[in-house]
């Protein structure tokens, strides 16, 4: 029989080791999955994890790694603040869309004027858009006690409908021959977020790095970060300490919304270029996995986002490669499995497994 014993203190070793263990377990289970699909598991795993980094086309894939990791980092950093405080924003996908719509809206409104002020204005609009969208669940929670999980999630669907409406209506490219979707902002010099496309550098990458550093300082050095951690671990102790739970809800949801909005704006003004009905690819949800995989720690999130980005790119290669033709859904499942294994192995951080021999007494 296995018995669980609560540790007096969370284990330091396992805090760092469980994400690695989860990755290894996911590779094993993923291998089994691929084998079950009739694919060569070793080749599949190698294609996903090795090819983009060290394969013959690595120089092409490496910039992609940054491009895909940047929005994940931005969103996950914001989510991690709330998750630490027990505030569950799972509607980042919606805030991401609204940020993109607001930012792109500003850019498109100025078209074709050229000015150095346009892009900063778009950034502000994107951040504000995501922030405002997140303020809806925040205000409903603080005013009425409405569950933020359900509200933020419902707003994802609303945002998706709005996105469709915009790409078919207001933001549709007048010179687009009737196709849905807006003008391409990446081709509009004053509005693009690209710094150097060949290196995979855009302002979102820079913003992601800044977010990591800022979140690190906030969580380890600042009272606000301390209060966030306190509220998540012991809500009554936080109230005793003097933390105002409502202000925390507004801060955490607002920050994560703004960061998701920024991520959306950087994405729409660079890598995707235009507002279309299929502009969003689920970064807002994948970022939840990233946040947990990174242990809600800024540096961990950076690494987890790179790993997740790798599975996207590697998965893409495996999809197109003729010997594999791995379905896209397999990668999605792979990512879901990762979160499962992480949550399961988390047990080792707070509990000790003890084998007891037979039944006592």
């Amino acid at each position, binding site marked *: 029989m296995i018995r669980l*014993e609560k540790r*007096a*203190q*969370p284990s330091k070793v396992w805090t760092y080791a469980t994400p690695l263990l989860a990755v290894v377990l996911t590779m094993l289970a993923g291998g089994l999955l691929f084998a079950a699909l009739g694919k060569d598991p070793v080749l599949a795993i190698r294609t996903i994890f090795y090819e983009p980094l060290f394969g013959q086309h690595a120089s092409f894939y490496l910039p992609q790694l940054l491009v895909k990791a940047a929005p994940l980092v931005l969103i996950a950093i914001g989510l991690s603040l709330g998750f630490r405080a027990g505030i569950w924003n799972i509607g980042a996908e919606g805030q991401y869309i609204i940020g993109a719509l607001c930012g792109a809206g500003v850019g498109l409104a100025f078209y074709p004027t050229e000015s150095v002020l346009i892009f900063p204005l778009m950034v502000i609009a994107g951040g504000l858009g995501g922030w405002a969208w997140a303020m809806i669940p925040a205000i409903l929670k603080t005013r009425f006690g409405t569950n933020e999980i359900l509200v933020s999630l419902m707003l994802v669907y609303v945002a998706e409908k709005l996105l469709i409406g915009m790409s078919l209506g207001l933001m549709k490219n007048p010179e687009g021959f009737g196709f849905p979707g807006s003008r391409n902002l990446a081709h509009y010099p004053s509005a693009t977020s690209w710094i150097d496309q060949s290196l995979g550098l855009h302002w979102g990458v820079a913003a992601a790095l800044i977010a990591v550093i800022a979140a690190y300082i906030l969580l380890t*050095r*600042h*009272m*606000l970060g*301390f209060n966030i*951690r*306190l509220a998540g*671990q*012991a809500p*009554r*102790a*936080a*109230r*005793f*300490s*003097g933390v*105002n739970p409502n202000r925390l809800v507004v801060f955490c949801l607002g920050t994560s919304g703004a960061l998701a909005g920024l991520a959306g704006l950087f994405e729409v003004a660079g890598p995707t270029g235009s507002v279309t009905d299929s502009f969003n690819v689920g970064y807002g949800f994948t970022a939840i996995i990233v946040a947990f995989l990174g242990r809600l720690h800024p540096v961990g999130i950076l690494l987890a986002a790179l790993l997740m980005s790798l599975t996207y790119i590697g998965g893409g290669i495996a999809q197109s490669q003729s010997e594999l033709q791995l379905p896209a859904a397999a990668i999605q499942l792979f990512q879901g499995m990762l979160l499962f294994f992480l949550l399961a192995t988390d047990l080792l951080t707070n509990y000790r497994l003890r084998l007891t021999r037979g039944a*006592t*007494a």
Partner: protein
Amino acid sequence: MSELFAAHGLRKAYPGVIANDDVSFSIDTGEIHALLGENGAGKSTLVKMIYGLVKPDAGTMTLLNAPYAPPEPRAARGSGVAMVFQHFSLFDALTVAENVSLGMENPPAASKLAQRITDVSEDYGLPLDPHRTVGDLSAGERQRVEIIRCLLQDPRLLIMDEPTSVLTPQEVEILFATLEKLRAEGTSILYISHKLEEIRALCDRATILRLGKVVGHANPREKSAAELAEMMVGTALHRPERELSPPGEVALEVANLTLQPANPFGTALRDVSLSLRKGEVLGIGGVAGNGQDELLAALSGEALCAADEVKLHGQPIGRLAPPARRKLGLLSAPEERLGHAAAPDMSLTENALLSANLRKHLSRRGFINWGAARRYAEEVIEAFDVRTPGPHVAARALSGGNLQKFVIGREIEQAPEVLVVNQPTWGVDASAAAAIRQAILDLAAEGCAVVAISQDLDELMEISSRFAALNGGRLSEPVPVDDSLTMERIGLMMGGAHDMEVAHNHPSQVPA
């Protein structure tokens, strides 16, 4: 009398602590047997083994001379062993009848059960309405639910874990009459307590536990309370010394404070008024759940009220949050150590920061000075003799007594002008409790005004200069603690028998 139950060499070890070691004792039929010991002596583990919640590592038990090893509580109940828990095993949102039904093996149909509850409860002088929701009952009534649940199964052995800690003196008398009636009918009772006077009044024999071992058996009627205490603690206890200083000017004033509770089963504060001078200790007694938590919250700032319902040095502070009140010198220490006064998974350094940030200047413009926070935690550890490897240790790793010394010390070392504590020595071993009481008295001697909320009347008599009681959210008029303050009077201040009628004058109808 014949032997009903016996334990032989019971042992139970948890990682790092041996809860019970070679424990042997026996209970006779129709006997009230006391199990006496300090917090942490291993009483709870022992009764959990008897009730089938925990399996012993070694040793055997017998019931009516037959081997007895219940794999689960159900089996224990089936053998005629019933238990009334210290922290009630009740379900707030369910009715009395549903609660009783859950504790029975083969409950009768709902309507029949309700009738039996009414019958049995009246027979034993513990009237109870089976259709009421348990969450709305007083602590004394809730205990009745547990007792009735046990009695309906005609137990041979009834285990009672610290039953009087939630009762007023008058309610204790009713309970004792019930227990004596049960004894007369031949039921055995294992009575767990650390209250010596009670045991001397009620019990036939006593088994004394210390640090997991039986240190002696005694006839409590033949021993003095002091002798029993010495067996229990091992050494003669140091009694706190009280240095009376003349009370100074008024420090804290509460006027007509009325406050709705934060949770649906909480108690509303009604028209609470008090005034407290520097150097005074105001003891506030009362049965649990009569507004203690709410009063602490209203004073600490966790619950806000109208501005001038609470005044500190004449300044209205009712609308101020905890940090602002701390700045003005009003500090507090809540009852629940883990999760309220301290964050269990955070280190002592972080827990020091939790309430001492402002007064000890542990951060500047929001940026934390971790060095200063650690030094402050070390200062508290040093001053209050907190046994811990260091300030990096998580709060939950400390024993109850050590953590309590830390959270009380954390406030006292900030030199408060007014200190509010709730249950300062709850679940703490005797030596730590004595140290904490002494620290409170020393603080008062230095001119701090202290509000001590506690359910331990002995403690309040020891440290308070004035006494008041909370009953249904109302606070009685505070009176000086002197010889005129009898237990009888205290009991009445606490609400007497809480209008729970006594039915002991009925002749018994239950066959023994």
